[in-house]
């Protein structure tokens, strides 16, 4: 539905030129809820704005629904007005001088689509029904709560075009509890309408919760594209692994096939790395299992329990193995009376990456 190739965008800033997007390729299928996630300054909003036509790319091509909207060869530029996209802005951009109903009707009646009056009323009602704001229809937009304004923005976007909707951090101005509720609604609505949604956020949990597919963006490039499960459990590089959750990192060296020598001791790994390779091993805190006793099987170590924090649904704790501190997450902290425990990590839970200069921690 949206396809991008070789896209580049640079910005002139006071001390030189910053490449916001460097030669980026991306393919979004119809009906997909595609999330671009990345730290602030990674270029994700710039990418979205290039697709919307609010930024002019320096090079590359963007197609929307098969039609070229921006390209350097042959030079093509379709202004945002004619791209026929629905878009939800971070600030909602609900026009404060208009009522809820007028906010949705204005682009329909006076935009490039020029929809006849009678049909406008119908489409406004339909959009309001979808976001459950029918009651508020005639209220001034500024009298609504943040969550309601967000729904007005959503209704406006889907009234303009429910086929393709762009969302730029649509939840970042809502409070935490509301955010969870609204993101469920957005996903529900997108699936109900069969929309293709391109969704930008900096919050990896939000991304996981809502996405069909996630792309992690860093310094103007896509590091990995994949389904949430895949990207969490099978990251292609250490940066991706670390972005989606904390990781215990260990520098190690492969000593025989499937065995690496690490600061903890010998670890069994599932990897095709050659003997003698230096590797970076990582496993997530929740993969560290503790028991107060038990047989000494493979990949298990005697550990001393360090500090622990109770979060309600689980503990976050540290254990010390061979003077290395490791983080763990669990519902309970089993330990023997002397404050030690046996900790274990399964070989399939250990991610193996080529070594980098990063220190374990």
């Amino acid at each position, binding site marked *: 539905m949206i396809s991008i190739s070789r896209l580049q965008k640079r910005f002139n800033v006071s001390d030189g030129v910053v490449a916001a997007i460097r030669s980026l390729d991306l393919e979004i299928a119809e009906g997909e809820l595609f999330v671009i996630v990345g730290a602030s300054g990674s270029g994700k909003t710039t990418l979205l704005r290039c697709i*919307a036509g609010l930024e002019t790319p320096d090079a590359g091509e963007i197609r929307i629904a098969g039609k070229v909207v921006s390209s*350097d060869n042959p*030079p093509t530029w379709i*202004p945002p007005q004619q791209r026929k996209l629905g*878009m939800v802005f971070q600030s909602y*951009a609900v026009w404060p001088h208009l009522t809820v109903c007028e906010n949705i009707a204005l*682009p329909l009646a*006076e*935009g490039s689509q020029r929809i006849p009056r009678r049909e406008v009323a119908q489409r406004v009602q339909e959009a309001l029904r979808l976001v459950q704001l029918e009651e508020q229809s005639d209220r001034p937009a500024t009298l609504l709560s943040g969550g309601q304004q967000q729904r007005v923005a959503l209704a*406006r976007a889907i009234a303009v075009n429910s086929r393709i909707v762009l969302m730029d951090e649509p939840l970042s101005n809502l409070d935490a509890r509301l955010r969870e509720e609204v993101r469920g609604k957005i996903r529900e609505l997108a699936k109900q309408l069969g929309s293709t949604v391109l969704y930008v956020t900096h919050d990896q949990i939000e991304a996981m919760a809502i996405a069909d597919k996630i792309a992690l963006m860093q310094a103007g490039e896509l590091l990995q594209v994949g389904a949430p499960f895949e990207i969490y459990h099978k990251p292609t590089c250490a940066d991706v692994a670390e972005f989606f959750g904390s990781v215990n990192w260990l520098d190690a060296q492969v000593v025989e096939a499937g065995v690496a020598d690490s600061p903890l001791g010998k670890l069994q790994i599932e990897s095709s790395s050659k003997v003698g390779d230096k590797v970076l091993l990582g496993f997530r805190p929740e993969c560290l299992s503790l028991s107060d006793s038990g047989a000494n099987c493979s990949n298990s170590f005697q550990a001393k329990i360090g500090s622990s924090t109770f979060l309600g649904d689980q503990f976050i704790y540290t254990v010390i193995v061979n003077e290395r501190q490791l983080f763990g997450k669990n519902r309970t902290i089993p330990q023997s009376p002397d404050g030690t425990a046996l900790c274990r990590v399964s070989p399939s839970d250990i991610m193996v990456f080529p070594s980098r200069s990063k220190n374990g921690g």
Partner: protein
Amino acid sequence: MRQTSLRFRLLGEKGQTSSALLSLALVPMATILVLVTVMFWVSIQKGAVGTPSAIYTLNNYSEVFSDPFVLRVAANTVIFTITATLVALLFGLPIAWLAERSNVPGKTLIYAIMTLGLLIPGIYTAMGWTLIAHPRIGILNRWLVDLFNLNEAPINIATPIGMGFVQGLSLSALAFILTAQMFRAMNPTLEEAARVHGMGYGKILWRVTLPLARPGILAAVIYILTIGIATFDIPAILGLGNRVYMLSTFIYLKVHPQGAGLPEYGITGVVGAFMIIVAGLLTLWYSQVLRQGHRFEVVTGKGYKPALVPLGRWSIAAWCFIGGYTLISKLLPLLLIAYAALTPYFVPPSLAMMRQLSLSHFYGMDWELVLRGLTNTAILVTVVPLAVLLLGFSISWLIVRSRSRARYALEFGAFLPHALPEVILAIGALLLSLFVFGTSIPLYGSVWLIAIVYVVARLAFATRALNGSLLQIHRELEEAAFVAGLSTFRTAWRVLLPLIRPTLFSVWIWSALLVYRELTVAVFLAVHDNITLPAVIWSYWYSGSINKASAVTLLMTLVLAPLILAAWCFGRRSQVSAQ
């Protein structure tokens, strides 16, 4: 290569609106540059300026700076400006503190008095004070002479200090607005910290509030100095008839010599160039002080509610002060003008004179002249504010929204008219129309020449107000409209303009009022056909017909009053006056 062509092309299509706006926005900047250049160009010529027979020389400069008369005029100007600044702060600063930091009752009225004070023309105060304290006709002098059997009048308002006093009364409103803004932005927790730690109100004011306010006060002082040094109307009303000159009135005399003298444009150019440099330096200093002021971090975005100092019985004293200021700066002058308009000749009011009040000056005035002035003023009031809005909006939009480097140039350009006093703009325009356009573009003596100068002069204020207002409109509100399919024009019409409508209206009415009362430019550029209503007052006053001048002033006020009221009502809604 391909990339550059793509960029160029994309900009060409997307940036069509921007480039159209840009060319619009560059017009006033270019005008100012031309005016300044002409000034310097004329200043180095002797003989028939602008003709092949003109001699290019620096003699004008050596002549001016070695002339003892010019030096006295310069000394007068310095004394006048300093007095004006001190008097303006003497009234403006305490009233601003009262309005923002004390619990004095009736704050809305204080704001009404001070804001509208900006709109009451300085010439009213000047005319009124001539009637009060002129050595020959001033009623205060006459009473004092009678009371104490004096040989001569004890007070002379037609001195640099006297004129500075009147100018200061007129500028207090500005001093109030500038310093009130600063008191409002000051972080009250700094004062609260002092109070919690045991300091009294007086100590806090002296040791915390005023030191914190120092950059703000200094900025206000420089701002007022810049205006004072080149002001024309009050020194003209008070001083010209009595042969006490400031730089601005000196220039006027060189352009419009009395008797058989010939205009000395070269000299005018030199003094003008000198004033440009002084004003430019003051403006530089001003922006420096503003920048350093940020260091103090007294400005806060949060909606703190400042702790107000309880005045108790001192409220009465405070209101006596405010009332006294209103009386001597606004009410008394206006009353005396009205009295002068209705009496056959000007003598101190008495019962006998009250019986002689009549409308004879209204019948006796040259109605053809007055109507010509009224027509021209009407044209200016209609055209100028609209042009100011159009240009101001284009410039502001580009400054606030565009990311091209051109916006820095624009921002500077929009600030230029602020640095250049109206006198300079007026003379520049006069020299330009006389010696550059000549007969090829017949602007000399036309009302449009005045209109151009007014537009340029008012732009700094308009762009400042519109910048503030546009900055508060989130960029995404426009972008949402673009993406949703609204054309650029419709976006402006349906989204942007409705959102900043109060500011637009406020800028419009303020520009209209300031154009309506303006005297400096009008007096320099008025010939016959393009005389404005204030210039009619001026011509009566200058020729000694005090009563007729007062009559026209009274007429003018009758039109002004409802407009000022409207400005107040709308200004309150959009708070533009506070900017």
